[in-house]
């Protein structure tokens, strides 16, 4: 029997964030940028905290990143992640200066260190949802 609690947690995109989610579906990591002063910001929001401009442009991230911190979760805080345990979650410093939090795939705990180079990947969940993921850059 289907158990709705096992369904994936899904984002509820806003007007400000819709382009981010649309970009992921095309396997592109898009970041919001101030159209006036060029400051990159994440997570998406309607105003630049540097110059207060509300004009927005989107840039495609290079996909280059390094480990800022991480945790390995052994407890499923939502039933839909039970199958993924232990789940390695990484906060990554993107080359563009903002951070991305995403699961790290196929890494042994011993290879985790601050500053380790990463690249951004994508997990297509279904037609409506693609999520970002991270891979150690030296993984073939």
């Amino acid at each position: 029997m289907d158990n709705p609690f096992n369904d994936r947690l899904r984002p509820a995109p806003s007007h400000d964030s819709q382009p981010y989610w649309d970009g992921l579906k095309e396997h592109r990591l898009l970041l919001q940028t101030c159209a006036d002063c060029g400051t990159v910001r994440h997570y998406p929001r309607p105003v630049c905290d540097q110059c207060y401009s509300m004009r927005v442009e989107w840039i495609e991230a290079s996909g280059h990143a390094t480990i800022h911190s991480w945790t390995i979760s052994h407890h499923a805080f939502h039933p839909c992640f039970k199958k993924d345990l232990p789940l390695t979650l990484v906060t990554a410093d993107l080359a563009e200066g903002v951070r991305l939090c995403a699961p790290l795939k196929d890494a042994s705990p011993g290879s985790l260190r601050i500053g380790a180079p990463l690249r951004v990947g994508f997990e297509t969940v279904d037609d409506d949802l693609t999520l970002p993921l991270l891979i150690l850059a030296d993984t073939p």
Partner: protein
Amino acid sequence: MKSLCEKGAVTGIGETAYTKGSGKSTVALQMEAALAAIADAGLTPKDIDGIVPYSSGDGVAEDFITKFGIADLRFSATTPMGGASAIAGIQAAILAIEGGVARHVLIPFGRNGYSGGRIGARVQQLPQFRTIGEFEMPVGQIAPAQLYAQMARRHMMQYGTTSRQLAEIAVTFRQHALLNDNAIMKTPMTVEQHQESRMISDPLRLFDCCLESDGGAALVISGAGPAKDMKQRPIYIMGIAEGHPDQPSAITQRGDMTILGTAKAVPHAFGMAGVSHDDIDVAEIYDCFTYIVLCQLEDLGFCAKGEGGAFVENGGISLTGRLPVNTHGGLLSQAHIIGMNHILELVKQLRGDGGKAQVAGARIGLVTGYGDMGDGTVAIMRN
């Protein structure tokens, strides 16, 4: 500039039994604690003319007007900062009193954090966590334990902090809880038992995480003038402040994730109080996770950033240590009463009612609140 130093005092405290399964509604828990606090202050419910209910609970000012028959409630506000809310509520209460709007402000709290809606599930329901809900929960970053684990991991890698040092915090607070009749945890804990406890989100183990509990607690805040003639010895608030971190709702986007909003509140609170760290006889520090205690000790300035691990080692925060911390057992071993229990414990210590955990001669003490992923509050009190 006007200062709030010693303009307000805690004049009444009240609490229920702290349990796993209260068998009472959360409103009843709040009423029971509130009535005890009002009686402790030597007041009647009709004397209350200000209320700061807990913003994420299910108590509202209307409940108290109805149930206490308050004819002219002049001040009500909420301070939505999770575990930092209660001290922010005291600051709001003193502002209202000093501004002549209210005379006696009630700060009530009650919830069934164990038997009702579990605390761990609440994050998803709060508007201040919209960004976590949209961008982090779908990838598996759901609970505070996971975010605080990333903060702790960063601290460990930067400063060499160890899990055994976190264990010292849990073990010390358990020792204190064993001296407290109203504590949920009744058996001792060793560092080894902490190290063997189940891994929740590496590096945080089960015994690094606070309890989920049922219970109620309440405070009455009055003006310093009237407090002199009230039933209890007044506990004066010398310094009080709230601090919000940059990027308050997204730890992952915060420039330095090893610094809490607490650090911003500290100069304001100490400056207002006009005291130094050496003057603090006892500290009750919000302890949702062991790491958050260690981080606050640094942000508070009791030691430098990165030295929290050494500070808590060898009984450093025990009753006989350099700074006795969480003499009641804290959220880790007494009960999770959203830090209200920390404020009540400081008041008891400064009244000399600390029981078996009384710090001899305690005259000035400090209490913190912490919540919603980084908000910090600090209050310094004296007897």
